[in-house]
């Protein structure tokens, strides 16, 4: 059995670790590229959202490399994502591929079901082995998230352009390679040391922007045109509303392991969106309120074209933005997004924030460029 799965940011690292530790052969699809997008768009319904198209492209590329088992996440709606695995299975079958697809539905109350599937894939009945593989994968997910946060706060003040990203790339490779928890601990120390050695401009005053919205567009840099890096270059510290480890916790762990903060967060959306609208629609609104309370300078709201939960959130954005006095820009992304257009909007949004700060006296100089 050769297992593959869709890309979503750094998710491939913990997933690969989990299966390889259990001695399952893994074929990681090539990183998302224009080719992935073209393949996905060619065989997808045009009105489906971008995540369906890109992950379908991932599957096609992986199947061509010899994968025979696809692992895909499911869902319970109203977001259409929950149905994507079924649609993709049919599309791939029509294309003549022979494969087995395993859909991991969120385990709220179905923990046994997910365990059964894991037993099936790994062909192991030993809970202890599965537990230690899962633990290593989980530790990697946590470390990757810490690394992302670190990179996002260093990049805007780095002295040598591109240095942070070079360290980041190398760090990801090291994390991916680590075979045991001890090894991971020493990798972590090395990475933190290298990160702290990056030379930083002391006189630069970065601004802070929160990134909220649909999970896939937030986490997959290919889809959001590397928005975190672009903003970093513009001197912005970026904090994401969603990190991989949180997604794993919400979707693959039983609900009693979810922390209380999540419920507290959702309460912030109360005056605007009172019920679950699918995906992270309610979270997006709650996070805008949270970022405003935490003193962030602005929020960027990302969604793929035709994303239903985020369209609901979008309609509440102007009011939230006004009530909480925080600028919010919504960016809609799809296969037709032009990089220059997005860049112009990002630059304009950053200017807007800097001028606002200048006006309130918190910020001194107009930066070069």
């Amino acid at each position, binding site marked *: 059995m050769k297992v593959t799965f869709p890309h979503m940011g750094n998710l491939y690292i913990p997933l690969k670790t989990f299966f390889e530790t259990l001695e399952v052969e893994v074929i990681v699809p090539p990183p998302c590229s224009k080719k992935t997008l073209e393949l996905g768009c060619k065989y997808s319904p045009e009105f489906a959202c971008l995540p369906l198209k890109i992950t379908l492209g991932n599957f096609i590329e992986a199947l061509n490399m010899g994968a025979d088992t696809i692992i895909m996440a499911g869902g319970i709606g109203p977001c259409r994502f929950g149905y994507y695995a079924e649609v993709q299975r049919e599309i791939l079958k029509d294309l003549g591929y022979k494969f087995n697809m395993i859909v991991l539905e969120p385990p709220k109350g179905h923990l046994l079901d997910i365990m059964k599937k894991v037993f099936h894939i790994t062909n192991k009945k030993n809970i202890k082995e599965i537990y230690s593989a899962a633990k290593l994968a989980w530790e990697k997910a946590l470390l990757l998230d810490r690394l992302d946060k670190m990179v996002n706060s260093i990049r805007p003040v780095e002295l040598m352009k591109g240095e942070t990203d070079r360290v980041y790339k190398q760090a990801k490779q090291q994390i991916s390679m680590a075979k045991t928890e001890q090894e991971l601990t020493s990798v972590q120390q090395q990475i933190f040391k290298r990160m702290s050695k990056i030379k930083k401009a002391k006189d630069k005053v970065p601004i802070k922007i929160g990134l909220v919205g649909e999970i896939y567009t937030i986490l997959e840099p290919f889809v959001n045109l590397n928005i975190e890096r672009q903003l970093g270059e513009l001197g912005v510290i970026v904090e994401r509303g969603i990190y991989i480890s949180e997604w794993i916790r919400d979707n693959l762990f039983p609900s009693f392991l979810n922390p209380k903060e999540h419920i507290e967060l959702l309460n912030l959306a109360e005056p605007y969106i009172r019920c679950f609208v699918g995906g992270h629609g309610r979270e997006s609104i709650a996070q805008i309120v949270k970022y405003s309370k935490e003193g962030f300078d602005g929020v960027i709201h990302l969604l793929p074209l035709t994303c239903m939960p985020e369209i609901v959130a979008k309609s509440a954005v102007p009011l939230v933005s006004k009530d909480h006095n925080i600028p919010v820009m919504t960016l809609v992304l799809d296969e037709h997004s032009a990089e220059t257009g997005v860049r112009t909007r990002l*630059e304009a*949004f950053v*200017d807007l924030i800097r*001028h606002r700060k200048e006006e309130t006296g918190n910020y001194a100089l*107009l930066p070069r460029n």
Partner: protein
Amino acid sequence: MRCYLGIDVGSVSTNFALIDEDGQMLKKLYIRTAGKPIEAITNGLKMIQENFKDNIEIMGVGTTGSGRKLAAVIVGADVVKNEITAHAAACIAEYPNVQTILEIGGQDSKIIILRNGVVVDFAMNTVCAAGTGSFLDRQAQRLGIPIEQFGDIALRSKNPTRIAGRCAVFAESDMIHKQQMGYKVEDILKGLCQALVRNYLANVAKGKEIKPPVVFQGGVAANSGIKKAFEEELGVDIIVPKYFDVMGALGAAILAKKFMSQNKYIKTKFLGFEAALREHTAESFECQGCPNLCEIIQIYEDKKLIARWGDRCGRWSESIAV
């Protein structure tokens, strides 16, 4: 005389604005880009030099528009700014209490919301270019009307017809249909103006609070028919600034002036008017490094590579110091 230069390289026109130390306009140029931005930029530089000979000293340069990066490399710019910031800067200089800017250019349209002299919100067209300058140009051409007379003819209409304005292609077929039905040209033009304004307000200005004073700028502001349609739809007076067609360039010049006054010890990066005499060429190739197949653009000055961009990963753009 000491002055500041602003250059706005847009899809349809390349504009220049030369201002003095008090921010007064000395010279404005509106040059058709015609798909050749490098030529448009160097031509503009030559025209300014011929006009002023050695009487001016450029103290700072700002560039904006979709070709701002290219212009910055060729001319040497102190400030490279996006169109939204540049347009807002120019408008605020003339109307400090402006609250809404409607801007319709050759291929994009935007709305900028300001409060107390600060930009608080903005939006640009995303899905369709219906209603921008290029489309109006084409329709005027098709009807055999000089674009300059478009607005005045539309204003003569007493009974405008309703045109479907959601999409440029459908708007055109609807117009042809109406022509064939025997509607008067002025009624069709007025109907088109109204359709474009409706489309703009429904798409670009969606959800934005439009408060007066409202300033209308960009090339399309020359069209009195569109201005009137905006006034009727919004129920407020619309101001069209004196230099409505070069506001981006004017804003870039103002931002360059502001930047240089804040950084007194920095010398301008302006390469001099001789830059226009050098030969600039652009070349492109497809990088085969990964399946992204990025198209890399290389800019040469007298056969020497001076800039490179277009790659996602930085492999090419970072290997050259600009």
